[in-house]
């Protein structure tokens, strides 16, 4: 979905695409030239029957003395042309049907889509065999059989693509303002479908080639004395013990062409898919040991630097402590380094980023010293920004929420569920057993975030990191979550790092606030000072002014 934005992007060449294009065009060229030169030899009988490779016959001769190289090349030419024609027919009709479906009235459209859906579910080769049975055998019959068998796949692809495009806002707008249908198709439909259809074209050539050769191979396609690659391979098979070299020619030709088409398709797909783009290789953090900084605070950060693999620093040596039962706010705009600070504490930095510090400690665990997994789970727990994506969609909540207790605390599944149910009740989930049975998608964002908090508390961590826990929630739900966090602070002595870009939320909740900008801490404030509006940094003032307030003007 994400990549179906209108664009006229130029084709990006990549190694697979280059290799495939070169391989295909070279093979086609050699086949065309050589088959015209050697065309006579392919059918010329000679006395030298069943010979092995020699200077005169590079691949030897068959049982009638015909040159096998010439036969392979002529057969390849036939297969190549047949595949091209079949690809042309099936692509043309497939795209036509697929696009026409969306301009048809609703009833007809739904009926047509069902028919396409049904025809896709039969194996293509089976459909081709049926058609070959009806049409009889021969080159044209095979081409028709395979083209028709290939139409449904292309039609479905086109229908899906154009369906998605027709429902997009700018197309709806264009239709409303009365852009004619033909302009709609050429301006909106085709440019957006070009890439996937090009990939389908390559796939269609490859499956067409393989399917037609298969039909000839099993004896339902091209018949002697005509030859194509499938026919040649079938002729070679009975003699495979006495003249194994006979299978070499047709096999090589089929492989060259189908691998070429596959590479082109792969290359096109890779060029079209942004997911495949690479990031630079990452380096692992250098394990060091925290210096004894002589602080009694449960969380100590000294000179934390987060840098990219290329050496750029994103966080420039920041230091802070969090006391027992304290909520420390970390505010700043996007890109100020606040989330990286949090992820460093949790040792969850994304690939390609490194953290170093003179001291990094949570509870009794030295985070610079590659702590054991169970230790780490006890030291730091995280609450993430978007509760919509933090839970595994394929698993039930109970499985996920009880994981820490079962793995690190050795609880049985039943015990773990009871503990989590208790914690869920604690964060005001009304029916914990039902939540544990649900899948994430069955819950609201607020319920998921409450569950996330319960899971975080299960480990009784020394530090609880909340990375923008209310940003993705609407205001009333967010208020509920903030109340829970405040309650946790009051009832336990967990140290909490609360990250937000919203100074309003931070003002409400935090005991102390650090303001971050471009990877450095620009100001430290107490909660009271912030609430009283006593700030000295212009940047903080700016953030504070950005908080919308409901002021009643008289």
């Amino acid at each position, binding site marked *: 979905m994400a990549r179906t934005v209108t664009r006229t992007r130029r084709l990006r060449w990549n190694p697979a695409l280059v290799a495939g294009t070169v391989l295909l065009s070279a093979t086609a060229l050699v086949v065309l030239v050589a088959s015209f030169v050697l065309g006579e030899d392919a059918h010329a009988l000679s006395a030298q029957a069943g010979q092995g490779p020699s200077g005169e016959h590079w691949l030897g001769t068959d049982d009638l003395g015909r040159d096998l190289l010439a036969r392979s090349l002529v057969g390849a030419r036939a297969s190549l042309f047949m595949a091209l024609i079949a690809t042309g027919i099936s692509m043309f009709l497939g795209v036509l049907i697929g696009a026409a479906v969306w301009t048809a009235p609703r009833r007809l459209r739904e009926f047509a889509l069902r028919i396409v859906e049904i025809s896709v579910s039969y194996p293509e080769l089976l459909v081709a065999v049926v058609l070959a049975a009806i049409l009889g055998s021969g080159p044209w019959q095979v081409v028709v059989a395979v083209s028709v068998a290939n139409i449904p796949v292309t039609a479905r692809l086109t229908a899906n693509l154009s369906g998605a495009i027709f429902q997009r806002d700018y197309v709806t707008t264009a239709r409303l303002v009365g852009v004619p249908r033909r302009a709609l198709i050429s301006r909106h439909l085709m440019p957006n479908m070009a890439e996937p259809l090009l990939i389908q074209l390559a796939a269609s050539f490859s499956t067409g080639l393989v399917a037609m050769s298969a039909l000839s191979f099993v004896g339902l396609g091209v018949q002697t004395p005509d030859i194509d690659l499938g026919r040649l391979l079938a002729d070679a098979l009975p003699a*495979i013990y006495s003249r194994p070299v006979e299978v070499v020619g047709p096999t090589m030709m089929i492989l060259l062409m189908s691998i070429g088409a596959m590479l082109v398709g792969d290359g096109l797909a890779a060029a079209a898919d942004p997911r495949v783009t690479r990031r630079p290789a990452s380096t692992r953090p250098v394990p060091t040991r925290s210096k004894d900084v002589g602080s009694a605070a449960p969380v100590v950060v000294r000179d934390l630097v987060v840098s990219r693999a290329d050496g750029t620093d994103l966080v420039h040596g920041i230091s802070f402590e969090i006391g027992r039962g304290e909520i420390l706010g970390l505010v700043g705009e996007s890109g100020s380094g606040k989330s990286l600070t949090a992820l460093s504490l949790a040792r969850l930095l994304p690939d390609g980023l490194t953290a170093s510090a003179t001291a990094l400690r949570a509870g009794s665990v030295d985070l610079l010293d590659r702590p054991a997994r169970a230790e780490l789970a006890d030291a730091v727990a995280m609450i993430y920004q978007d509760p919509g994506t933090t839970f595994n969609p394929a698993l039930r909540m109970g499985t996920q929420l009880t994981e820490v207790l079962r793995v690190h605390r050795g609880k049985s599944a039943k015990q773990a569920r009871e503990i989590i149910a208790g914690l869920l009740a604690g964060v005001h989930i009304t029916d914990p057993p039902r939540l544990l049975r649900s899948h994430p998608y069955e819950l609201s964002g607020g319920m998921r975030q409450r569950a996330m908090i319960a899971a975080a508390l299960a480990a009784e961590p020394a530090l609880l990191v909340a990375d923008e826990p209310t940003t993705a929630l609407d205001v009333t739900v967010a208020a509920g979550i903030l109340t829970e966090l405040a309650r946790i602070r009051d009832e336990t002595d967990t140290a909490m790092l609360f990250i937000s870009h919203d100074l309003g939320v931070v003002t409400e909740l935090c005991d102390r606030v650090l303001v971050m900008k471009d990877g450095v801490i620009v100001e430290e404030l107490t909660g009271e000072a912030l609430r009283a509006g006593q700030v000295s940094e212009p940047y903080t003032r700016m953030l504070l002014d950005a908080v919308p307030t409901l002021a009643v003007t008289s």
Partner: protein
Amino acid sequence: MTDVHLTVGARPRRQRGGSSWTSFALRRAGGLAGTVVTAVVVTFFIVPLIPGDPAVSAAGPDATRAQIEQVRAQLGLDRPILERFVDYVGGLFQGDLGHSFSLNAPVADAVFRWLPFTAGLSFLALLVVLLVAVPLGMTVGALTRGGRRPRLDSAFGYVTAFVAAIPPYVMATLLVLLFAVTLGVLPPAYTKSSPGLSVVLPALALSIPSICLISRVVRRETAVVLEQDYLRTARGWRLGAMRTALRYALPNLLTSTLTLSGIILVGMLGGAISVETVFGWPGLGLGVVNAVTTKDYPLVQGLVLVLAVLSALMTMAVDIVLGIVDPRVRGGNNSG
């Protein structure tokens, strides 16, 4: 399994009235019915659409005019087409698939004799595919995540692309050349005395290209899943790489892997047509080819119908397994 469905019925954000599991099953059954009905209609028309007179080909080359007319009456070809269609459908309900003149036996008998061979071969091949491709794809995906080991990544990409491009019958030929002709360790064709040994090469010919296809998809999906927020959550719980992979990444790979396996298994029915011919494997694929070659149209009709229904059943089986594994599929929005 049943409790899964019950809780889903009670979900708070249900799209439609009634249990979604029931409507999911109904939708799938509807799809199956559509596919089967289409197959019945299409296979019926195989015979009337064939150029030339089926009675002539059925009666044989030396038949007199009277004999041809007799065969025509026997086959019911002299009756109106609608009546013949009703008969055809009625026969199907009684398990009557027609009479094969090349075998001089009911088509149903041939189906029952050949079906176990095709089913056994396909499922063995699919089993091999899944057992090899999923761990392989996951391992490579995990090793190359985020641009790590670029050389392994491209080597894997090229080798699998290369092998996947080999059509099953060419793979079959190459396997025969290697294991039967050169090494002489496995039989080149089906032998009654050792079906266990002779299934090895056909199964490999069917599974090797699919292993490459599926492991590529699994590798790609692994790379995508490893980047997801919920994997970060799981890493935050410090479960260890293996547990994280098996419990949190694998279930999310299953959706795409299973969808693809269904397509591959249906494709294997097609591949079986050519592979069975190479190895003389007495299954439905070889049967269809021989039936077309001998112009035994009732047999073609019956076998094609059976193969079409089989592929529809497999598609439905995959859908149902998907519905169990990934509850979102049941919601009706299975466009992903």
